[in-house]
């Protein structure tokens, strides 16, 4: 059964016309692909009758491909091993899929002075891994696979996990997805497993190019990179703040809580979604607000994480700071730089545009979700978890959340948010704008 489904899926992909297309068609393809492919991906669930409701099956499939991690399955043990494996692997495919899509489409859109949002990614920490696009894509896929293999090996050797679970967690982590047997809660795993997962969540959130350099033992290049430093900081700073607040509040120090905090923060920033839940977090509004805000951030570009992305955060921050400086010193010139290169104005404005669109979609999403009966905290956290593709991290904010119990309307909204967030919103704005359909 399963192989039949995979077969038809691959057939579909091969049928994709890859000859010269206009930009418009390109965007349409991306948008359609991300809807149609998951539709096919949902078939295994339906055919094996594990999920009865077609909406739920599609939801699960989209959640996988978008590397979200939210699951609407009742009790995961009702899914056979085959399906659990299928679920894990579609995350893995989705994770590398988005990266390869983006890389492949950059030169495709680069016609002269084409100002495309994808173009922005090129200007961040990307050096060329290979002179041709397909070469770069192949390199990326091999890095991705290599990292996965390393994690798989470590899980089996060090954490003594069985190969099935090791595979599933590897797929889930490297793709920053977050599907797990207990709706994302992995407290039950052994300590070594948890630490390996934490490490690889961090790696998965890093630029794949960095992994390449690490593997080539060129660590200097990685450590000097601004995005990496910023990425490390947005993990360390919140950890520090949360640790301070937690220990100040519960008046004692505890290494395991420290570990939990580190794990959860890495998970949220890499938008994976695994969590280790514990009572002392739930009591704190500081915890809630901090984690909630972290969900918007996301990690580096060219990783499978969602959110706003580190390079945008850096540019937005520096642009604002430079504006102040220019007010104080009207005759000074303060160009905004990233990794030493000046960020051109149009790109800055595009980044700003993305930020605002992200917030706008979030706001509208949260409002619509609340119409179906969810409270303030639940609506807001569900909206951002869907958009940033954090997924199961929502349990860090609403411990009683049960994805399966969602109203069908909300499931639809969440599915849309997942896709919109995965595609970085712009393709959807394209489709919604009238100019797109003219001519």
């Amino acid at each position, binding site marked *: 059964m399963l192989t039949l489904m995979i077969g038809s899926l691959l057939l579909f992909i091969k049928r994709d016309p890859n000859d010269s297309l206009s*930009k*418009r068609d390109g965007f349409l393809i991306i948008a359609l692909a991300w809807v149609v492919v998951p539709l096919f991906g949902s078939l295994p669930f339906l055919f094996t009758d594990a999920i009865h409701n077609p909406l739920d099956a599609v939801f699960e499939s989209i959640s996988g491909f978008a590397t979200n991690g939210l699951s609407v399955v009742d009790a995961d043990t009702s899914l056979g091993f085959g399906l659990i494996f299928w679920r894990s692997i579609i995350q893995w495919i989705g994770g590398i899929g988005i990266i390869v899509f983006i890389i492949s489409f950059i030169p495709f859109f680069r016609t*002269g*002075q*084409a*100002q*495309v*949002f994808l173009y922005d990614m090129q200007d961040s920490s990307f050096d060329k891994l290979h002179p041709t696009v397909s070469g770069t894509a192949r390199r990326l896929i091999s890095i991705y696979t290599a990292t996965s293999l390393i994690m798989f090996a470590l899980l089996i050797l060090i954490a003594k996990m069985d190969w099935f679970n090791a595979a599933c967690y590897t797929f889930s982590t490297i793709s920053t997805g977050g599907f797990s047997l207990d709706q994302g809660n992995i407290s039950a795993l052994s300590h070594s497993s948890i630490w390996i997962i934490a490490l690889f969540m961090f790696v998965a959130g890093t630029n794949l190019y960095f992994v390449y350099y690490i593997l080539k033992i060129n660590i200097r290049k990685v450590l000097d990179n601004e995005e990496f430093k910023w990425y490390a900081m947005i993990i360390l700073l919140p950890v520090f*703040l949360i640790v301070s*607040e937690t220990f100040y*509040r519960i008046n004692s120090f505890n290494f395991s809580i420290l570990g939990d905090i580190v794990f959860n923060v890495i998970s949220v920033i890499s938008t994976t979604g695994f969590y280790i839940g514990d009572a002392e977090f739930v009591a*704190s*509004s*500081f915890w*809630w*607000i*901090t984690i909630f*805000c972290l969900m918007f951030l996301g990690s580096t570009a060219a990783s499978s994480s969602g959110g706003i992305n580190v390079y945008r955060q850096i540019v*937005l*921050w520096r*642009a*604002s700071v430079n*504006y*102040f400086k*220019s*007010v*104080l*010193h009207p005759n000074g010139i303060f160009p905004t730089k990233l990794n030493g290169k000046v960020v051109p*104005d*149009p790109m*800055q*404005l*595009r980044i*700003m*545009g993305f*930020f*605002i*669109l992200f*917030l706008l979609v979030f*706001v509208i999403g*949260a*409002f619509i979700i*609340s*119409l179906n009966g*969810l*409270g*303030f*905290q639940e*609506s*807001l956290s569900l909206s951002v978890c869907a958009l940033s593709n954090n997924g199961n991290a929502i349990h860090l904010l609403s411990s009683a959340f049960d994805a399966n119990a969602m109203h069908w309307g909300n499931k639809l909204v969440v599915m849309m948010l997942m896709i919109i967030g995965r595609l970085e919103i*712009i393709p959807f*704005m*394209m489709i919604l*704008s009238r*100019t*797109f359909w003219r001519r």
Partner: protein
Amino acid sequence: MRMQYKSILKVVGIALLFEGVFMLAGIPFSLYFNDTDISALLWSSFITAIVGALLYFSFPRQLLSAIGKREGYVVVSIAWFVLGAFGALPFLISGSISTFTDAFFETVSGFSTTGASILTNVEAVPHGVLFWRSMTHWLGGLGIIVLAIAILPFFGFGGMQLYAAEVPGPSKDKLHPRIKDTARRLWVIYLFLTLAEVIMLLLGKMSLFDALCHSFGTVATGGFGVKNTSIAEYSPYIQYVIAFFMLFAGTNFALYYQVGKGNFRKVFRDEELRFYLGVVIVPTFIITALLYFQSDFTGSDAFRHSFFQVVSIISCTGFATADYMIWPIPAWIMIFFLMFAGGMVGSTSGGIKMMRHLILLKRIRMTVIRILHPSAYSPVRFNGAPIGREILKNIVAIFILYILTFVIGSATLAFMGVGILESFGGVATCMGGIGPGLGSVGPAGNFSAIPDAGKWVLSFLMILGRLELLTIFIILNPSFWKK
């Protein structure tokens, strides 16, 4: 150029003198109602005026014209703290408020026309002091209008630069002389609006005291009322009157100037006005639907409450006719998000302001179009005129800073133990100068339970929001003070 500290002090002195005089305004009401706060008011006024006079008369007259850009920043920023500190005296001396933290909060809430209150029982406050409370709104609004239209654009903020051609604004060199002209015109409009509302309210059988206080609160888009239930107990007629005047107060005063000159077409074509009205109308209908279908309001009640609340939040006034926390959740989630809207530029509203949102949205649309048609060059236009890079950068910077400040502010309050709703709602409402927040600092509650450190943070945020964020950050930057 060296910082002209003496000029700064002189200007602060003037401000204090005026403040001291206005403190006496409530005395007739104290006499009428036989309240016990007359001596408190007299003493507060005396102390404030003496300090003001000392500062003013100690320095020679010429110093006034030495106020340049940098001195202007400082004056505008510290004025709030100084006026706030002295303005707290009537509350403290009369015993209506017991701690300085609370009194300062209330006063700053007044001058910044926020309207957030730490009072648990407004009706127990003697009339003279209560009148002073509303007076702080009115005076704050006066100052803010001049700030928004005349002063801030001179420094490059505020968005009013786009109207520079229409309103007689300050010329690039001397701050001092032109400001007077513009200010005078604005105050006429402000006074007119206040009077008009007072009359309309009196016609609605409101007492003179109530009418004055509420008008002060409306035209300044403040929100301090005289009842614990804000506006809930008044008649529908009064509620509609206040709603419409809130709408007027949130409108760009430059447009009133244009109306006065007879340029009606220009006014109706104003893009910001249309956007403003649109942002009022759409949520009104959505919330009306929510109230009608998901709650047990009648159609007309649903509309009235919805309209009132939406206008109140968008204009950043903060009056309430109902406790929206008991409305269907989507309704107050929408209200929460609307707290980030802000009224029109050139009004007494706070927040990010309509014009900025409008321009940002236009720019995003342009970005999307450009992706498909890269050669399509058309700059974003506002009312026909293209928007320069500088203004776009200003808008972007303010927006990002606003969000960042909101996040850090909420996290800070949460660190002190304040709940999620109260942190988010409290910070959003204080930054925007609105008044009611969420949860226990919502329209049915007050800010008394917030820890003292939190009250100081919120007071600071109120001033920050009022000064469009940038001014304070500039002053906090050490290189500002060099040379």
